[in-house]
């Protein structure tokens, strides 16, 4: 647990005015890590991978997999193209952190992606950003053009024989494109249908070639690890899930926003100190800790819980993207859950029947309960549908749709039953 979080100085988004400008970024030591590794001063591609692996940067897109380990899955170069695809799709409700990097420190991400590419001997990078982020795509286009002009992207970096291309491309409105293989399909100009794995992208990714996919925040951590070392990184927050985290806090709090703090900050500190408590002096009712798919926790389950994967798993939830949604005592859990189910039904790509039909059924039954026409047995039907969806589809969207339903009903069952009892169909 990061007990000393109050003295933490942000490193992903430090308090430096106009850090988005390349000159300011350079004056603050920017692109030095890239120069070091590309010039090979004490660094080889392999040693970069090993350092990142040792730092244990766990993927910030939600899955939390060791980034360096993921990089090490790339096969040896065979002379053909290989790709890095940076995932800036960011569409999970509650999650709004990566665009802060695009806006306030885009070059940290760009430098991280370039170091990652060098480490994996990749010569083409794509950053895929959700289409709704029109303003941020423009900012990134500018940042990439500036980096290109300065010679950090393009031919013969720092006079070496390493050359790299870096492009930005946008989506057009589809949550599923945040799923890594769906993002690849979309990048290839198709409907965003997730691919069956295996083969994994490291073997067969973009255009059938080896591809690594990393989240924006994950890559932004890379220059910090190269500059300060894996041990420095590991010393921030809990050992099992270290590093700085961009916490997105939304919902019924006095001061919502994105806050950079160490991993492992106590949940109640984030709500009470960082976000300045629940709005209107109301009581806390529940919390979704890491984006809408992560299981909701009741206020009485939050005692002693900190924002890291181990602590949240013990509490019965997950870290996800650290996008916390706070709910006060007046929150109608039936309405809230119906809206989440509506989201997943809307966003199911329709490829797998358990997801396409399952998300529809969840929404339909919840709408019936919300409208006061529910029966107690509908609650068990909902739980039954979730078990028929989970783990039976190509990607995890069905799981992401099932978990909120199962956990919200189990953890707030009284409220759901009360709504059903209002129904004329209710059994006395």
């Amino acid at each position, binding site marked *: 647990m990061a007990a000393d979080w*109050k003295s*933490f100085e*942000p490193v992903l988004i430090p*308090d430096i005015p106009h850090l988005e400008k390349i000159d300011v970024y350079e004056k603050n030591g920017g692109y030095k890590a890239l120069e070091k590794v590309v010039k090979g001063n004490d660094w080889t591609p392999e040693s970069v991978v090993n350092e990142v692996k040792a730092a244990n940067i766990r993927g910030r897109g939600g899955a939390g997999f060791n980034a360096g380990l993921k990089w090490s899955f790339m096969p040896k170069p065979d002379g053909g*193209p290989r790709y890095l695809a940076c995932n800036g799709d*960011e*569409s*999970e*409700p*509650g*999650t*709004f952190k990566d*665009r*802060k990097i695009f*806006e306030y420190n885009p070059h940290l991400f760009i430098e991280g992606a370039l170091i990652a590419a060098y480490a994996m001997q990749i010569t083409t990078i794509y950053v895929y950003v*959700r*289409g*709704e*982020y*029109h*303003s941020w795509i423009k900012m990134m286009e500018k940042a990439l053009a500036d980096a290109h002009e300065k010679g950090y992207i393009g031919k013969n970096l720092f006079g070496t024989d390493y050359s790299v291309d870096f*492009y930005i*491309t*946008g*989506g*057009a*409105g*589809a*949550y599923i494109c945040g799923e890594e293989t769906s993002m690849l399909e*979309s*990048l*290839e*100009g*198709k*409907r*965003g249908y997730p691919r069956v794995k295996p083969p994994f992208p490291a073997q067969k990714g973009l*255009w059938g070639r080896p591809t690594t996919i990393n989240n924006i925040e994950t890559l932004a951590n890379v220059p910090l690890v190269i500059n300060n070392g894996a041990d420095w990184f590991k010393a921030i927050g809990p050992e099992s899930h270290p590093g700085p985290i961009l916490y*997105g*806090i*939304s*919902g*019924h709090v006095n*001061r*919502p*926003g*994105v*806050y950079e703090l160490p991993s492992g900050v106590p949940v109640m500190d984030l709500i009470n100190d*960082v976000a300045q408590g629940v709005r209107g002096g109301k009581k806390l009712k529940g919390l*979704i800790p890491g984006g*809408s798919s992560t299981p909701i926790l009741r206020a009485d389950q939050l005692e002693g819980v900190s924002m890291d994967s181990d602590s949240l798993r013990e509490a019965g939830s997950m870290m996800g993207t650290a*996008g916390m*949604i706070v709910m006060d005592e007046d*929150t109608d859990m039936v*309405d*809230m859950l119906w*809206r*989440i189910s509506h*989201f997943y039904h*809307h*966003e199911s790509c329709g490829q797998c029947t358990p997801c396409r039909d399952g998300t529809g059924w969840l929404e339909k039954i919840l709408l019936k309960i919300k409208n006061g026409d529910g029966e107690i047995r509908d609650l068990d039907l909902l739980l039954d549908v979730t078990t028929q969806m989970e783990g039976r589809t190509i990607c995890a969207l069905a799981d992401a749709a099932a978990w909120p339903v199962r956990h919200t009903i189990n953890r707030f069952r009284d409220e759901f039953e009360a709504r059903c009892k209002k129904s004329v169909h209710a059994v006395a």
Partner: protein
Amino acid sequence: MEETYEFTKEDLQEIEIIKAKFPTVMPATLPTLWVAQRRFGHVEPPVQRLVAKTLDLPESHVHGVATFYTQYYKERKGKYVLDVCTTTSCQLCGGYKMLHYLEDKLGIKAGETTEDGMFSIQSVECLGACGYAPMMQITNDVYVNNLTEEKLDKVIDELKEGKMPEFESVGMPLLEKRNI
């Protein structure tokens, strides 16, 4: 008779720049649909056919892509499309209230367009601005954060005068300003 659509010389140059980013032509499908929508205001089937012809790709492929992604307008919309987010954080913070206020103000329901062709309203899924809820996006462009009825009144008045809101940075809550 079907309306005919043509890209301008500038559009075609932009499409060439897009194509150069990728090893094959198919990845240009999404960005070229964007070019088309910005030019014509929608991607109805004749526009999809123009995109297919320009990229030398099957019409069925372009149609499949255009219909999969929500931001492409498969039917004509108003000059300004008001996408009000009503997903979880916005729902909790009054997104539906803002949506209904707009509906009453403009005399149309979500999914409809005003008779003068000025405004369309849509209730949309999460736009990734959860900390600034409730919010909306105007015609796939700027975000308007922390909506209130007064703010909506102002935005609508300004849009009627053809004034698009500026990009609004919501700032970073930096450490020393947190008063922790």
